[in-house]
């Protein structure tokens, strides 16, 4: 499920210093936000190619990661360019309702396009960062940013525990599905409720077992992070 995490550990730049990578990410963001369209565009293409090369992810899988966010991007841009006007000449593809016209705003279309390209290049930059930086390096980055220890410790533990929960989540989900628990919308809601409740029980079960392990490892209230 968390395939990005796997690539982050196995890519060719995994060993690079996290500070360097954070610096490059910042640079990429600046490139994405600067005004020159051609520069955004060439950065987008270069970084995408680099990402695929260093992670050796298939292009198909790489494109798949965009599926989830494309509708949102599309809707947002639609929200930017769609408008109402009294004058037909302001609009592209205008249709009228009484005296007002609906359609795509001529002045906003370039803005929408610019935002689209900008968002795309920024996303590609962040994907590069996510795909090339193991999460343990992110933790050490947070440490260097001098964020509070409690926050970093909880982040680190959460990262470890997520994998435990995802595994049981998948197992429960499969078992429910194979017993027809997701066949209708009503059943889906009901089964999801049971799934969430069972996961919540695991919070308690895991906690009890971890308490014992912490005692055995002489835990004194602090998870040291180097």
């Amino acid at each position, binding site marked *: 499920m968390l395939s990005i995490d796997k690539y982050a550990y196995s890519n060719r730049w995994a060993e690079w210093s996290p500070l360097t990578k954070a610096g490059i990410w910042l640079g990429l963001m600046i490139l994405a936000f600067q005004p020159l369209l051609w520069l955004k565009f060439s950065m987008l293409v270069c970084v995408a190619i680099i990402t695929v090369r260093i992670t050796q992810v*298939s292009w198909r899988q790489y494109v798949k990661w965009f599926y989830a966010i494309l509708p949102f991007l599309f809707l947002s841009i639609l929200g930017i360019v769609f408008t109402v006007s009294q004058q037909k000449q302001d609009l592209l593809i205008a249709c009228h309702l009484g005296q007002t016209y609906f359609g795509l705003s001529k002045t906003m279309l370039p803005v929408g396009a610019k935002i689209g390209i900008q968002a795309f290049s920024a996303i590609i930059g962040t994907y590069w960062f996510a795909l090339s930086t193991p999460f343990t390096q992110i933790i050490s980055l947070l440490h260097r940013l001098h964020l509070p220890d409690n926050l970093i410790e909880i982040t680190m533990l959460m990262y470890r525990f997520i994998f435990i929960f995802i595994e*049981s989540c998948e197992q429960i989900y*499969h*078992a429910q599905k194979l*017993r027809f628990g997701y066949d209708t919308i009503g*059943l889906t809601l009901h089964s999801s409720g*049971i799934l969430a409740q069972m996961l919540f029980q695991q919070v308690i079960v895991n906690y009890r077992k971890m308490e014992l392990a912490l005692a055995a490892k002489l835990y004194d209230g602090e998870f040291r992070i180097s």
Partner: protein
Amino acid sequence: MLELKNLSFGYEPQHLILKNISLQLGNNHQHVIGLIGPNGSGKSTLFLNLVGVLRPTSGQIIVDGQPVKYHKHNLQALRQKIGIVFQDSDQQLFYSIVQDDVAFALNNLKYDTTEIQRRVQEVLEELDIWPLRKSPIQYLSGGQKKRVAIAGILVLQSEWLLLDEPTAGLDPDGRKRMAQLISHLVARGQKIILSSHDMDFMYDVCDYFYLLNAGQIIAEGTKKTVFTNQQLLENNKLEQPWLVKLHQKLGLPLYNNAQELFDQHDSM
């Protein structure tokens, strides 16, 4: 009959977990089919492909001559034909009371109440857990939970039953009772596919074997063919059951199970 034709599967196409697997399950002489292989060899992935949770990257699964289709309706039919019980009972028991949980699948299929009650009673009696029907699941032992999980699938009366590591976490008594349960189910016509790391258990219980390693079927055959090949087992990080070791190293006859060996000796 279940048939896999050149089945390959991988979450990403360049990393296949199952590689070009072809096999036929359910020929006449096969009642309990054993799937053996070291950790990470792809046994569970193969099971998930068989019940349609995972969709093969290439190749086909053919059930009774019909290729499996991945539409909702076809999958429903497939899952009534092939039931699966996973290793961890705790992740497949959804209600707090035994009989509610066993009825889950039938309720979802909208069977009528009397039929559900009838089937639940039948299965609970068959699995010897009728007295537990109103017990809270959290207080059951590992072996009892396992039985409830199996009951939850058996109510579907599916032709095939897949059991993933049925003896994991059981004590010697639970293990013995599991072997008895499997023979009982087979005797009344249930077809079973098993996977387990417990070679002695597998040797006792199964009558046909597939050896899986690194996503490929390395060998198949009766218990005698597969388990007498020591080199094969060692290469695949498996062990010989002790009955086979006795046969090969001490020159005893090859018995089908421990009972046979000791009966033989008692009668002498």
